[in-house]
């Protein structure tokens, strides 16, 4: 076997390059983005509250802890004050994050699952499948999403599961359109044809060749969907359409909305918690967007 030394890059650059996978390259770009790192820190804070909050501050958020309308920072028993029933706001913040973030993540997962499946099938197979699925997507798109979700929640019981499914059911259309566009673009690429010429079937081509390359924009949109889903849940809670038996940040805002002028703190603190979470998610999403942008990669 003849060797062709001139066709190989010089050994030192090869060694330096060899360790660098696309994932690491993306992390390198992400790390340079200060806002994205701040978002990551905010999400870390939220995760900490979710995981340790109830352990560190074991107070029943539904229990009556003090007099109603206790102002924040005046009573050590209720550091962030109490609401119109005398329930501890800090306890609500500590416990409510779990429900809020879980609904956000689960609804985003459902959104991505439905959206990517519909979009992938439409974009890959085209023809009548595309026609059918695109019409279906448009059908969902023309329905006002909040109203549609409200109808779904009122039709069934307002439990967290139903709320999650309802949010997923009304918000998958954007993901579907994005996935469809990506699959349409990628299925024509040479390496997909090359693997097709290797004898791969459509399922393998979709899952192994096309999907991994469609992931960057989908991941970015998924993070943003987490933020929207959290806001969506808060909105439903605010309208009194979420599960009244599970403490969530949205529920706190919803319950106290009538007393917003008498105890601003009962809506402001859970609102801030939601704000911090959604901001963190959005900043990380933006950072990922940059990290997956090959034009920002240094070679």
């Amino acid at each position, binding site marked *: 076997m*003849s060797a062709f030394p001139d066709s190989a890059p010089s050994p030192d650059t*090869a060694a330096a390059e060899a360790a660098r996978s696309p994932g690491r390259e993306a992390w390198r770009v992400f790390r340079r983005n200060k806002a994205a790192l701040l978002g990551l820190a905010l999400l870390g804070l939220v995760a900490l509250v979710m995981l340790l909050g109830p352990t560190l501050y074991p107070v029943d958020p539904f229990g009556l802890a003090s007099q109603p309308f206790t102002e924040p920072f005046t009573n050590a028993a209720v550091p962030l004050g109490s609401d119109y029933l005398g329930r501890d706001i800090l306890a609500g913040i500590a416990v409510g994050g779990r429900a809020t973030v879980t609904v956000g993540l689960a609804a985003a997962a459902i959104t991505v699952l439905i959206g990517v499946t519909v979009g992938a099938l439409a974009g890959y197979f085209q023809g009548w499948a595309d026609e059918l699925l695109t019409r279906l997507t448009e059908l969902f798109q023309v329905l006002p999403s909040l109203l549609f979700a409200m109808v779904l929640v009122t039709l069934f019981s307002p439990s967290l599961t139903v709320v999650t499914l309802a949010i997923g059911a009304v918000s998958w259309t954007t993901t579907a359109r994005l996935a469809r566009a990506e699959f349409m673009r990628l299925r024509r690429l040479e*390496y997909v044809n090359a693997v097709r010429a*290797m004898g791969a079937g459509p399922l393998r081509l979709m899952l192994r060749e096309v999907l991994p*390359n469609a992931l960057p924009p989908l991941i970015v949109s998924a993070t943003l969907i987490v933020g929207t889903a959290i806001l969506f849940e808060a909105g439903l809670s605010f309208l009194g359409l979420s599960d009244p038996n599970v403490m969530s940040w949205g529920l706190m805002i919803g319950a106290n909305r009538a007393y917003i002028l008498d105890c601003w703190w009962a809506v402001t603190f859970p609102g801030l918690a939601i704000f911090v979470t959604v901001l963190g998610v959005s900043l990380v999403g933006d950072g990922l967007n940059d990290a997956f942008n090959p034009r920002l990669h240094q070679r």
Partner: protein
Amino acid sequence: MTASTTTPSGDDAPLLAVDGLSVQFQTRRGTAHVLDEVGFTLARGQTLGLVGESGCGKSMTALAMMRLIPQPPGRIAAGSVRLHGRELLALPEAEMRRVRGNRLSMIFQEPMTSLNPVFTIGEQIAESVRLHLGLDRRAALAHAVDMLAAVGIPAPARRAHDYPHHFSGGMRQRAMIAMALACSPDALIADEPTTALDVTVQAQIFDLMAELRERTGTAILLITHDMGAVAEMADRVAVMYAGRIVEEGGVHDILERPLHPYTQGLVACAPGRRRTAPGETLREIPGTVPSLLRRAEACAFAERCEHARPLCRQRPPPGSQPASGRRVRCWLYPETTPADTASPA
């Protein structure tokens, strides 16, 4: 491995036989006859050069043989493609998948975009091995490293873990060849394998292909518009024009004594094939390839041909055999012409 069980006895049966292959595309302006009764044969260890200018149907022939033509607009209207005597066009799609990449492989024009950017080179070669040979992950990766060594990648065990963007164009084309040959196919279709590479790397890739052909006996269908590549690699040459094969013969006959006026033009166009005096302009063939929307009711080349006669514009020329092993489709060589290989004009 499934294909070889149906191998007919008799060594003179061609490994790969394409016959009467016609492909049509439905367009808004009518039916385009992209391939019109294309036929050729390929024996074990042989290389057939398929030449012609852009748009003449070379790549379409390859895709039709692999049954990879996009089906809604395109359609294989007629013909047969036999590998070891087994009709590929009649196979169910699942069976055909077992032939692709396994018995009949293909390498593409663009090595820069023919590898998936998110997987390592080794994983991608191993993928095709796992698909057909049923090896487990580790055995497949080991086989991939062997293949990389066979195509001359230095330090193959290490380079197998590299991503495509770590490879130069020439090395990527080597990796593509490794992938295509990983299951030791009977035949390899190389669709302009060196067009995107620079000249020195082109020569290396051809050397590699020739060497692997010697070692494995894989037949090669080399699709190219480079007459120099044909002279170097091919045993036989088929010249395509407007979806038809207009001339076929041994590489020396075609290059030294081209019969069809189009082939004569092609050979004359190639720089370096014939001595050009300094300052003399290279010859060109006037005009462009005709629209494929009208099915040839005449010779498709008549409009550009300096020997065209009224007959050429009235009826399509029949195929004739002016000498043994040569076929030409031109009115200058009617069926009755005795074996005479002298050039006209």
